[in-house]
């Protein structure tokens, strides 16, 4: 893009001002817009306005989520998992990860307990009549997205699941 285009030497910079602030212009155009702003009070004023709007968003502090907004989902999920109904270990693992990623810093320390809860859920699932289905395992392996979790030679499903949780945690580290 060239600015200003030859026959419209008097045109204003317009949306190129935002692009300038966002570092989205090539060097030549950026220099041309800069030069124009230097001699055009109207564009200078607009650049200041745009910059203020931009900074009001970028510099605004993040809004703190009200308590329960994030953890509510995790809690409901774990309860469902404990009932051994529709959610398998994959969900428990994912819930553990989600709670680690999103929960209050104060609760992050309980990661071991969460993994432990996951193991318990997996034991319950195993002791129930329907063993973890291939679909559940596929979910887990897909969630882990990691070759280590697909290693069939490992002795126990729980071990692999724990490993998958660690992989997910690294993903989100």
């Amino acid at each position, binding site marked *: 893009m060239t600015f200003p285009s030859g026959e419209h030497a008097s045109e204003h910079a317009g949306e190129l001002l935002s692009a300038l602030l966002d570092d989205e212009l090539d060097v030549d155009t950026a220099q041309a817009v800069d030069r124009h702003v230097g001699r055009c009070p109207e564009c200078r004023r607009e650049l200041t*306005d*745009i910059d203020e709007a931009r900074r009001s*968003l970028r510099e605004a502090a993040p809004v703190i*989520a009200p308590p329960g907004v*994030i953890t509510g*989902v995790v809690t409901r999920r774990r309860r469902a998992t404990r009932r051994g109904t529709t959610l398998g270990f994959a969900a428990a693992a994912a819930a553990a990860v989600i709670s680690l990623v999103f929960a209050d810093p104060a609760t992050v320390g309980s990661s071991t307990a969460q993994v432990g809860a996951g193991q318990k859920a997996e034991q319950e699932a195993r002791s129930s009549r329907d063993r973890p289905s291939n679909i559940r395992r596929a979910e887990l392996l897909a969630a882990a997205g990691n070759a280590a979790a697909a290693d069939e030679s490992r002795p126990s499903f729980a071990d692999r699941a724990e490993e998958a949780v660690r992989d997910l945690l690294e993903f989100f580290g």
Partner: protein
Amino acid sequence: MHGDFIYTVALRLTGNHHDAQDLVQEVLLRVQRGLASFRPGSLEAWLGRITTNAFLDDVRRRRRRPVTRLPDVVELVAPGAPRDATEALARDALPDDVTVALQALPEDYRVSVVLCDVVGLRYDEIADELDVPVGTVRSRIHRGRAQLRRKLA
């Protein structure tokens, strides 16, 4: 803390705590389903995309089946004690000036501005996300900021 990041993006997009909370729930479900699709990179960009997509899906759904919802202001001044602390907190927390000003923007402008200035995506990434040309993104962001400035002034 990523929960606050998602909540902030949700609040900027929806403009009120009630809808922001609903959006966060949907995002967390999508995050759980999408864990496998996450590739090392910017976690916030990934979360921001998921939040925006969930928001746009909801907007499209509402357009197909319009529902009338009383504005949150009515809820905020409604008499009666809140049922629990969470609700009380959400009621007490009026959306900030930036959130209120964003709501006055046309949705196309608001989404582009939020993706740029809250989520931190580049123009080409926003264009990909919204399936529009980069020039359109640039124009929406600029017009959105200009209107935002007038609202905040």
